[in-house]
């Protein structure tokens, strides 16, 4: 068996008689479809581009604006700021006029003052 000429034994086929007409009909159809397909493609690409730009904008905002706030600042000692739980306490300086708070008790000699604890918290921090 001559293996080189093996395929010569296979039948050759030809195109059907109306092949050219079918190709030209499909060509005409594709030509009409092409503008709408292009429009759809342009729309898809612009949608993808807008989404990518939005995402990039979000990333830039996150990295350059939000992260550069007071959280990232260091203290004078060079340490990073304390965790959020301890940062919840805000120190407030409130001016108090002790002149109105303290009364002259010498005028009311019969008055007995009873000091009692009114809070469940340990009294070691309560100063009278």
């Amino acid at each position: 068996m001559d293996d080189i000429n093996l395929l010569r034994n296979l039948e050759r086929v030809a195109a059907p008689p109306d092949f050219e007409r079918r190709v030209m009909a499909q060509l005409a159809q594709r030509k009409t479809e092409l503008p709408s397909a292009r429009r759809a493609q342009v729309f898809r690409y612009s949608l993808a581009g807008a989404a990518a730009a939005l995402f990039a904008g979000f990333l830039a905002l996150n990295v350059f604006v939000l992260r550069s706030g007071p959280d990232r600042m260091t203290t004078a000692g060079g340490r990073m700021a304390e965790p959020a739980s301890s940062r919840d306490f805000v120190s407030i300086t409130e001016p108090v006029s002790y002149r109105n708070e303290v009364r002259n008790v010498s005028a009311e000699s019969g008055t007995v003052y009873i000091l009692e604890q009114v809070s469940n918290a340990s009294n070691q921090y309560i100063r009278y």
Partner: protein
Amino acid sequence: MTMRMDEQELVGRIQAGDESAFTEIVRLYKDKIVNFLFQMTGDYQRAVDLSQETFLRVYFKADKYKPIAPFSSWVYAIASNLAKTELKKRYRMNQVSLDDVQYSAEVSTPSDETTDSGLARNLREALDRLSLRYRIPVVLKDMEGYSQEEIARIIRRPVGTVKARISRGRSMLKRQLEKATKENLTFQKREIFDGRY
């Protein structure tokens, strides 16, 4: 050479949008491409559909053709890429069942009066079993008569690779043919034994 010059001129006219030049190209190549795709897919109707797609791509992608290689190589490259995609799709969808093979053999041959000799049938079976990597260069060489250099341009591989694939493909085809012949003989013997003949 004159043929090649004519083809280059036709391609130039297609690039300018001349449909009559395109018709001429279709007329020149339709039988070759349909036959090539039939040998690749084993299905005549599918081969015709893929050939139409090949020519449409030729028309719409004509501006991408560079005249450094013959026009025929470019057309065959488009056709073989379509054949590869088709077979991959078929493989993925698991369409190549025994029923489909029998159906395509019965229905999709170009003419019913074609007498399919035993050797041709076994050969078709053997060719269908051959991987595309070998089938494309073997068919281009042994059926379409292309040189190894031209095949190298079509499948975009070095000439040495093409030479090796043709040689290996031929020997694989021979082995597959022997196997198919043996299987068919056993099948025929069993049918005779079962009293079908």
